[in-house]
């Protein structure tokens, strides 16, 4: 196919590429929304709104005819339309990768940066996951016929990897002017250092997220156990996740890190009088209908002089709890 024939064939498929790009983007976002629960959550999850982009005709021709001659460029060039998903954390890349692999198309992973890291363990450069998807069969989208096996490239990267890619793109991949070789070497070295730093930072971010998640999970476990104990003691079910529970979890973060669900069991088991107190008090006070009083009770007995200092609500409630537990409020409120 000569240049004119290739140009007209490519221009003929532009509407189909455009429709394919939008469909792929929409399908991934819709699945993400299902997983994360709301459109708002998706907006937060995606650091940059994904916009499908069809390759310009001249750029396609240049790639097909000049950069590397291909026998069937319309099939072989896979980034005729592409969309990029930029996320915060490395683990978020996997989430989108899985959605792509399970989508209503044929998906193939073209670049796997995790694998590339291992294959070139002492090499720091561009990192992104690239997928190429192709339509399984001919389909019609928005009245436009999409041929079978039409490709679309999906790039997934963290926002730090994106920053690196943008920098590297403008300084080495497609420089506006060619630099003297010595200068280019310095730039390449700096880029490698930047990439290594970004890889390190991405790992650190992952660690931060893990710590936060571990903490949230341990707090949730404590609130759930409180609610179970409350139900056993009073025979009344109680919602483990309440506004008061959140308030207390927030106020006593430092103390809660040393508490385990088993501590709560032992604490409640050592207090046979708790049942009567709770049954009597819950009838007239919403505070005692919240199962977080179990967790709070343990915090009070373990840290009786420190709890009032961080109490986030009306102190009358806490003073009453001290009274119920038989601990004097004298001098600490």
């Amino acid at each position: 196919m000569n240049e004119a024939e290739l140009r007209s064939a490519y221009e003929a498929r532009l509407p189909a590429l455009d429709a394919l790009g939008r469909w792929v983007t929409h399908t991934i976002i819709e699945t993400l929304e299902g997983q994360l629960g709301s459109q708002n959550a998706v907006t937060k999850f995606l650091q940059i709104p994904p916009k499908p982009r069809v390759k310009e005709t001249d750029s396609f021709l240049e790639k097909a005819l000049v950069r590397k001659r291909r026998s069937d460029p319309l099939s072989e060039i896979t980034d005729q339309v592409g969309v990029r998903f930029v996320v915060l954390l490395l683990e978020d890349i996997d989430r989108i990768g899985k959605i792509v692999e399970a989508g209503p198309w044929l998906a193939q992973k073209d670049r796997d940066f995790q694998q590339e890291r291992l294959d070139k363990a002492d090499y720091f450069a561009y990192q992104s996951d690239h997928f190429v998807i192709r339509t399984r069969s001919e389909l019609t989208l928005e009245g436009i016929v999409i041929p079978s096996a039409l490709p679309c490239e999906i790039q997934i990267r963290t926002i730090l990897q994106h920053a690196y890619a943008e920098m590297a793109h403008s300084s080495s991949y497609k420089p506006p002017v060619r630099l003297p070789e010595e200068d280019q070497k310095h730039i390449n070295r700096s880029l490698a250092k930047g990439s290594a730093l970004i890889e390190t930072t991405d790992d650190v971010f992952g660690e931060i997220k893990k710590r936060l998640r571990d903490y949230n999970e341990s707090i949730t476990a404590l609130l759930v156990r409180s609610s179970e104990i409350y139900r056993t003691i009073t025979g009344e079910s109680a919602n483990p996740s309440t506004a008061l529970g959140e308030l207390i979890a927030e106020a006593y973060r430092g103390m809660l890190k040393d508490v385990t669900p088993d501590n709560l069991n032992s604490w409640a088991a050592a207090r046979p009088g708790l049942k009567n107190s709770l049954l009597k008090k819950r009838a007239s006070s919403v505070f005692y209908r919240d199962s977080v009083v179990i967790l709070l009770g343990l915090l009070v007995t373990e840290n009786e002089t420190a709890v009032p200092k961080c109490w986030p609500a009306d102190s009358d409630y806490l003073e009453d709890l001290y009274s119920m537990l038989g601990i004097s409020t004298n001098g600490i409120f």
Partner: protein
Amino acid sequence: MNITNLDPLRVIVHEVVRASQIAERPPVLSDDLVVLDGKSKALVGRRLVDTVASGSHCVDVTVDDGSAGSPFDRATAMLDADDDGFVANSKYLAKLLSTVQTAGAIKSGSAMFIEGTCFADGRDCRFLAIIKADSDQALLKRVSGEIITLTYVNDMVLGDSQRLIKIAFFIEESGPDSESAGGRLPEDFSVKVFDHLMQSSGNGDAAAYFYGSFLKCKLSNNAARQSKQFFEVVHSFIDKMPVSQADRVAYKGDLISYFCQNRETIEPRTFAREVLPEAHQVAFVKRCRDEGIGQAFSKELDMIKGKLRRQSLKFSSNVTLYAPSDVFRDAVKIIGTSEDGWTELKIRGSIEPMP
């Protein structure tokens, strides 16, 4: 003692005055029980817990006179008395309280007698509490539409100030002997007294009128043992604190001076606040609870006199430095330890000639 689920059942209130006022204006002694609504009951319960439960300043006392007709006998008989007997005994005790209010700045006020149930150290118990509540002054706020008025009240009782409350708390630990026709035995009861005067130094005599002259009790026989136990708990806690040896020596010196100060009672929370660094206070109070030291105790130095008399500093080279405790604090300063195994000290005074 861990006291929870405090539930007041029968309550009566009488007026008490200074002994010198009895003749000129006899105190009002009520014939009727007081009915408390839910919130008032909760407030009375809270005041009792605040003054006698874990972390409070109340101390154990021992009944000195438990004979028939004694205050102990009258008070404990109220538990099983019918309402008439309850009222009669309370009136007798209120009158007696007015009679012994002779010394110092004792104010008129109310004597409140409360019979109820509680959960003490895991067991259901009955209790009888006698509260001497001094009247306080306050302003009563009323909101009517857009108008707020403040009215002077000069007879408010059981406010937040513990300064205005004295309490005797008789907790029944074992039931009456069914074969005995007489009164109750002191060993069936745990008796606790709260009086703010016992916390402050130099007021021993002033405080003694309530538990001594009125109730015919004396400070607990256990006081010496409790003082020794507390001293040892603090010692071992300081030994495990993650601080330098020099700081440990300083904290132990603080412990000795705390015991030597002119105070009637010692309470773990107050001790922690006044002596230990903030970061270790919570752990210390927890340690005391775990060791069974919940409330305050009367200070009695008999069993620790030797330990208080002098403070020592022992070195790994077998050198030991002794000084009287009151001198040690100001006359011995630890400067630091060098890497070659020497410790630098500064000692006030010059070396005296050898005898």
